[in-house]
């Protein structure tokens, strides 16, 4: 038998076959794996491209209020969006769709606005090819419905979102610096169903939280049944009395439990505080008037009243004499804020209540009878004067009246008053409820307001804005120094805005308006002119119940009150709406109770749509596929 031949060839071929098969299987497996990997990467890239497109759309909307409201045009896509110019290339556009490539990658995205835009293009009237049936669900006209599709290779991801304008401020207290309310008790409340925050980009100092701070949510008690009812968010730390809650987790847990809120020291996200300017405030659509700057002071002034006096002399003969009666009458004067010089006086002749046809003892006339009041009156040493009518209203400017009886200034509904300089309303009367005044020869003489007997009639030189239906506004290019403010409208000051009395918006409820207090510097609630122990006990002059927006570019400060004995007097402070210190701090001192209630209704009443193409967005819904 011969030696088998070809066995080596057979073996080699077999082994080669096995190796080739294994190599083929290996390469196929690898190819599949690489395909899977590539597909997975494309999916991830498509998702990133989609999110990039969504964020780019937000960027565009926040910088251009017309974005999404008007059909896209080629000139809209001139690259003028800063650092993104070199990153994005607009490759296609239609009426409602923009498509971009991300430079240097295989990624792209398209942004489609699914509502608000016209169905046909402006130029040709053709239907937008990017629109399909079902693209137009009933989305509210004030919302923007966006679809963003991100692509990479063959992968695509789609996101849809509905955006809406957010309220200008979302917190009852919002400060860039510290927020200090460390006395008395504090209630954080909200009339909004979804928001109940106080926020600070610095430190929040509260009184001992477990016993003195309470979060509640009266705006939605039906559904919000479980804590937390509100949030205190601080970029730095939160102090509960002397305890640093950011460094003491047990104390923080106790504070959260007892206050029924959520206190978050060291919050990673910085609170965004909108830069509001005067143009963002809703002013009544009415007359604009100007008023000279100065301190408008409720005071008294001495005037000479020429009297005709009919009397019987010692012999029983009728005699007539003329005499100047020098008396003190209520007045309002305008003083130069720098020199304090009186520039104008308004006073009332009819305020003088010398009884006629009654026996009246006048020195030197022995039982004289004043039978007639006549002649012109003249205030002393005043550069300009005006005599006020019997209603006691002095017209300070068109639409602005000072009532001498009630010591207040009213800005008529619909009026916007501009003051080129400083503006102050002060109160300097020694005693309003007095019944006497200096008569001839230094004898007390009945003069004015002798029917005012109760301390409840104490007046505080209040500035009233508008009425319940319509507001009014005062704007000063300088600083403002007011007593009390009440009503509906806006008080705008380019300097410090000081309030030395009560701060109260009239009425509550849906129809009640709010007040916007804006200052380019500080807003300060100071010591009222007069705070006696009895006033404090009765709650007069001390308590604040304000509805609206307090916006200070720098600080909002509530000063401690002291009485005539220099003793501290605590007061209650209730602010419904929002308090904002954009660059500074909120510091509240000398309070018995502080109630901060967030209410967007009052913000809506005083803040209009943002000017200068700015917009603050809120995302209502989001789907990602």
């Amino acid at each position, binding site marked *: 038998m011969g030696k088998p031949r070809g*066995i*080596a060839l057979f*073996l080699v071929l077999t*082994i080669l076959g*096995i190796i080739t098969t294994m190599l083929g299987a290996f390469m196929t497996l690898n190819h599949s794996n690489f395909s899977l990997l590539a597909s997975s990467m494309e999916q991830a890239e498509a998702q990133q491209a989609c999110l990039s497109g969504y964020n780019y759309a937000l960027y565009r909307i926040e910088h251009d209020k017309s974005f999404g409201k008007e059909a896209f045009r080629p000139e809209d896509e001139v690259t003028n969006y800063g650092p993104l110019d070199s990153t994005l290339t607009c490759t296609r556009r239609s009426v409602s769709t923009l498509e971009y490539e991300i430079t240097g990658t295989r990624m792209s995205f398209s942004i489609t606005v699914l509502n608000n835009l016209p169905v046909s293009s402006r130029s040709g009237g053709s239907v937008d090819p990017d629109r399909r049936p079902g693209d137009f*669900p*009933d*989305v*509210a006209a004030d*919302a923007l*419905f966006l679809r963003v599709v991100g692509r990479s290779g063959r992968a695509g991801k789609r996101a849809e979102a*509905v955006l*809406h304008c*957010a309220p200008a401020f*979302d917190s009852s207290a919002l400060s860039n610096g510290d927020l200090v309310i460390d006395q008395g008790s504090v209630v954080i409340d909200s009339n909004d169903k*979804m*928001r109940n*925050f106080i926020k600070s980009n610095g430190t929040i100092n509260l009184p001992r939280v477990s016993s003195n701070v309470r979060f509640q949510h009266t705006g*939605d008690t*039906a*559904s*919000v*049944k*479980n804590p*937390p009812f509100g*949030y205190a*968010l601080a970029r730095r730390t939160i102090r509960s009395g002397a305890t640093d809650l950011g460094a003491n987790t047990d104390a923080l847990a106790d504070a959260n439990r007892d206050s029924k809120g*959520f206190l*978050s020291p060291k*919050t*990673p*996200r910085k609170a965004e505080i909108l830069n509001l300017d005067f143009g963002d405030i809703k002013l009544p659509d009415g007359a604009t008037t100007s008023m000279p700057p100065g301190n408008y002071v409720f005071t008294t002034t001495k005037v000479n009243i020429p009297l005709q006096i009919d009397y019987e002399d010692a012999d029983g003969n009728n005699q007539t004499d003329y005499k100047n009666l020098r008396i003190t009458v209520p007045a309002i004067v305008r003083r130069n804020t720098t020199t304090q010089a009186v520039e104008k006086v308004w006073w009332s002749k009819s305020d003088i209540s010398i009884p006629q046809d009654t026996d009246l003892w006048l020195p030197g006339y022995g039982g004289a009878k004043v039978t007639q009041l006549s002649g012109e009156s003249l205030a002393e040493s005043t550069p300009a004067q005006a005599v006020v009518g019997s209603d006691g209203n002095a017209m300070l400017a068109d639409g602005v009246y000072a009532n001498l009886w009630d010591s207040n200034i009213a800005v008529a509904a619909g009026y916007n008053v501009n003051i080129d300089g400083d503006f102050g309303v002060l109160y300097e009367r020694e005693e309003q409820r007095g019944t006497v005044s200096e008569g001839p020869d230094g004898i007390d003489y009945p003069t004015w307001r002798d029917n005012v007997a109760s301390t409840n009639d104490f007046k505080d030189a209040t500035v009233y804005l508008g009425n319940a239906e319509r507001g009014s506004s005062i704007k000063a290019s300088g600083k403002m120094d007011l007593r009390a403010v009440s009503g509906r409208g806006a008080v705008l000051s380019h300097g410090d805005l000081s309030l030395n009395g009560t701060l109260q918006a009239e009425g509550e409820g849906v129809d009640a308006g709010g007040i916007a207090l804006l200052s380019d510097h500080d807003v300060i609630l100071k010591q009222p002119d007069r705070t006696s122990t009895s006033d404090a006990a009765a709650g007069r002059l001390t308590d604040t119940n304000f509805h609206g927006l307090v916006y200070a570019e720098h600080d909002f400060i509530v000063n401690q009150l002291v009485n005539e004995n220099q003793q501290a007097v605590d007061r209650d402070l209730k602010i419904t709406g929002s308090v904002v210190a954009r660059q500074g701090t909120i510091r509240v001192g000398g309070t018995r109770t502080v109630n901060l209630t967030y209410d967007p209704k009052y913000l809506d009443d005083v803040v209009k749509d943002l000017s200068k193409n700015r917009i603050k967005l*809120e*995302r*209502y*819904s*989001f*789907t*990602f596929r």
Partner: protein
Amino acid sequence: MVCLGIFSLLTLVALGVLVFGAQGFHQVVYEQGSQNDIRRIMAAIQRDLTSTHHKSVSLVDRDSASGNQRDGICVVSLDNWNDPGNFDTYLRPKWNRYVVYYATLEEKGQNQTGRLIREVCIPGSNVGPYEFDKFLNSPGYYLTEGPAANTIDITSQVLTDRLWKFELTNNLVAQSVSLRLALRNPPQNTATGTEREMHSMEILQEIKPANTWPQI
């Protein structure tokens, strides 16, 4: 003879490669099975948590007897996300049900595992972007060891019976939920007869409910 020797050697090498390859393949399939399990569970959780409103997130903190976290979570949801009638004019969902995920406290077998349950609760009215009051106050209704005992649910579903840990944290400020899910497989014999060690797989993820407003 030389050829036969070479051939035998090559055959042995090839067989060895095949055996080890098969073992590796088995290992890969085994791990991919675990990964797919965890992906499948996470897909369900992600779908429900991503589409919900963060204000509705409520957690129940629970431990098994040996100290493993077996938490529960309840979020608001919709019966049909494709029904236009379920959205208002801002396309905000008109919430109509709550979805609950919870881990049972049992510890079966050597791997001490329990089950992960998904259930859907329809309280009728008063469903909104806020917590399900009854979930927090009546855990006996919603967090039972036997899902069938949860009589007020319309559906309940066992997602896995190899759950080891289910740990949840609600981040109120970030408006997100951190989730740690761990599955554990019992020891198994390999093809060569050796016992494979107990195998566990864990995923840690932070999910941000996208239909949350306002954003803090």
